[in-house]
């Protein structure tokens, strides 16, 4: 579009830089967004995407560089400055106050309820009770509410940081509809996502960051997924499959669920998990998979049914009981599982405290175990003094590494690659495969259906709290066949 170049860009960020002590988060990144454009910001974890968005939204201030809106330079000292410049951001963690009601949140930020309501209708949540307390609402809903609130500010540029990560496929489609509508109004969207299919699907232009620089700006349709990936990684890259050759899983059942029930969320789930296999769970958001994982990990008790570990019934009063039987959880919310202000080593050693010897000293092999886990996972420990300073991918490695150090039989992974770049994703899946080869059993839920055939041996499809389908050889499944099954549309797929 040659006409584009003659118009003044909506947003022009030039040579933005940010460093934290010795760690360079952003070296020199520029970004130009035109009016009426859906612009993707891509890059592997640690490339500087989040830093760039935080600068543009006024959360952190840049060490260097300039930002102009409509050709006018602006100063971004706090989120207020960003909002008054016409930029609105939906952050990865919803910026809604957990202890206030929805209504009070809107009042506090001075948005018009009726406009928010219009957008909520478009996002298919027309009957939201504005008097409900934010803490009681599920995360996907909150992200949509946050989006509606951002839209009600009527921004020139809407910045969406990984908004689809917590959403189901149909919810994501609603968000895309809203993005298109925003574009038709001549407004722009900056879209950050690890899901390249989404980027190809909806974005007009993409800027790719690598190691704190902007390396390329292109229309995503031109080169397709392969071009985007190679620009992000800086080398030719193939989507690696972690599926083993052949399917010779053992016969030893380490974990068995028999007719598990919990409230009306889990309605009679039964399955067997064998040593050496990776069993996938495919499901849309909110089909009871989160409750199922809570039950299996001992966090919640089932209201019916039983769990057998190595043939013995497991009655877990708390995760401690499950962990003692070797059933451990890797949750989606990494910081939930870790001690964010403690070091990598301390985090890795935490589960070992269960093994305190009688005189309260750790058994002497603590250091070896921790070192082993760090080596094996290839954890970047430059920022090792506080886990919260690590990138999301490295944090997730630490959550897995804790169990490597402590020892386990069954690994329950609940969406372990949420918001993680493809390189780290591949490493994590490779690791899960290695663990399975060594005899561990892995139960894996991933919100990204397309990844299930890449890593799982066998897959269960959950719908409405029940297992509605089993795919004996997960490699034969495709994203669309899984999606069809996950909608409860049995038999439609071929």
């Amino acid at each position, binding site marked *: 579009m040659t006409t584009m170049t003659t118009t003044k860009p909506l947003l022009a960020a030039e040579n933005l830089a940010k460093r934290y002590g010795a760690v360079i988060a952003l070296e020199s990144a520029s970004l130009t967004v035109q009016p009426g454009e859906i612009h993707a910001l891509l890059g592997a974890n640690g490339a500087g995407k989040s830093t760039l968005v935080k600068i543009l*939204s006024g*959360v952190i201030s840049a060490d260097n560089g300039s930002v102009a809106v409509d050709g006018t330079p602006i100063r971004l000292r*706090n*989120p*207020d400055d960003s*909002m008054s410049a016409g930029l609105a*951001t939906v*952050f990865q*963690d*919803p*910026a*809604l*106050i*957990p*202890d*206030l*009601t929805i209504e*009070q*949140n809107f*009042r*506090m*930020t*001075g948005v018009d309820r009726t406009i928010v309501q219009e957008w909520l209708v478009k996002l298919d949540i027309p009957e939201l*009770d504005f*008097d*409900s*307390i934010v803490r*009681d609402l599920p995360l996907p809903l909150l992200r949509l509410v946050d989006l509606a609130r951002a839209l009600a500010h009527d921004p020139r540029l809407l910045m969406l940081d990984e908004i689809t990560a917590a959403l189901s496929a149909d919810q994501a489609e609603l968000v895309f509809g809203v993005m298109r509508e925003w574009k038709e109004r001549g407004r722009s969207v900056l879209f950050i996502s690890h899901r390249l299919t989404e980027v190809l699907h909806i974005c007009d232009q993409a800027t790719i960051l690598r190691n704190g620089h902007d390396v390329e700006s292109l229309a995503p349709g031109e080169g397709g997924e392969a071009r985007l990936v190679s620009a992000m990684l800086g080398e030719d890259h193939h989507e690696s499959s972690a599926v083993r050759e052949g399917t010779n899983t053992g016969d030893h059942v380490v974990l068995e669920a028999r007719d598990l029930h919990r409230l009306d969320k889990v309605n009679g789930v039964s399955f067997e998990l064998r040593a050496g296999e990776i069993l996938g769970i495919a499901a849309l958001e909110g089909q009871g998979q989160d409750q199922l994982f809570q039950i299996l990990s001992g966090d919640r008790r089932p209201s019916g049914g039983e769990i057998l570990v190595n043939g013995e019934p497991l009655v877990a009063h708390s995760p401690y009981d499950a962990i003692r039987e070797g059933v451990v959880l890797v949750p989606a919310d990494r910081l939930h599982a870790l001690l964010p202000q403690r070091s990598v080593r301390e985090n890795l050693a935490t589960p070992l405290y269960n093994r305190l010897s009688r005189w309260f000293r750790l058994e002497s092999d603590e250091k070896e175990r921790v070192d082993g886990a760090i080596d094996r996972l290839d954890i970047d420990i430059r920022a090792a003094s506080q886990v919260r300073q690590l990138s999301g991918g490295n944090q997730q490695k630490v959550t897995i590494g804790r169990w490597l150090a402590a020892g386990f039989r069954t690994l329950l992974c609940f969406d372990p690659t949420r918001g993680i770049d493809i390189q780290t994703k591949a490493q994590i899946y490779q690791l899960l495969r290695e663990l399975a080869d060594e005899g561990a059993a892995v139960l894996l839920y991933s919100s990204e259906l397309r990844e299930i055939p890449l890593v799982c041996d066998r897959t269960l499809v959950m719908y409405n709290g029940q297992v509605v389908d089993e795919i004996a050889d997960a490699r034969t499944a495709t994203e669309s066949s899984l999606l069809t099954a996950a909608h409860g549309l049995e038999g439609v797929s071929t």
Partner: protein
Amino acid sequence: MTAISSSEALGGSQLRDWLRHHGWTLGVWLLLGALVVWYSTLVPSFGGFELSLIVNNSLPIAFLALGQAVIVIAGGIDLGVGSMMVLTNVVAAKYMEGESFAVAILIAVVLIAAAAILNGIVGWIINVSKVPDIVITLATLFIFAGFALAILPSPGGGAPGRFRWLFTGSESGIGRNAWPAIIMLALATQVVGLWLVKTRNGLSLYALGSDPTAAYLSGVRNSKAKILSYAIGGGLAAMAGLATTALTGSGSPRLSIASTATLNSVAAIVLGGIALTGGIGSVVGASGAAIVLFILNPILTARGVDPNSARVIQGLLIIFVLMIAGVLEQRRQRRS
């Protein structure tokens, strides 16, 4: 038919929601009502004198609890409020003695403003230094008490009768008219309470206490909200000091009064349902709880309980109420 049943269900859930938001506050006031009734059966006659005794004497701690509540809701805690109360009490008693009512009011207004500014500065220091609230305000507890001693080395001073009437319903501080104190407390509680939940600035205090990161991302100026909470807390501590002056007709510069008052203010807000972690609770509950804590004294005295054991019972009551609240909350979470 279905429309009716669904609207009934809606009504039921609205009531549940309301109880969830306000249940604790309601519970505190019901407890207070029960205690007042109990007290009325213990004394030979229960009338204006007894009522004003309770309300007047609760006034300082109730104001202090309101101030503490605002600060704790915003995620802080102020151990210096007791000293601020004593400091205001001392200054007011020293300068109001022998003055006219108009001058006394002027002094009161200046004192409230000065206390708000002074405590706002405390909030600013906490922001800048990043030293935890509890450490800085532990220091201000001693500093303000020291100021009070420097200004009025020994108890004394006074206040004009009409000024005393304003808080106590009597020019001598003891009488049968409870209305001025009731109105004063109800007004302060309502104004502070509504401001907190209805205005953008007020909600920003809840936001800061609930989740500072989310608050910042929502456009709240966290440092401004913190200073604001301390300033309001300081102003309400000054109200507590003025109420003390009116009640006793003198100034008393003792550190023990300050530290006891601070601890009582914390006890009152905890009993009133305000989470020490910030962001949760209502000032209406806090002022009710302050009266509950006070009324235990005359009740236990009337029952012939040794005053020293009264403290034990106060403490046990706090634990008991919090345990019930904890059990209810757990049951609610298990259901959902």
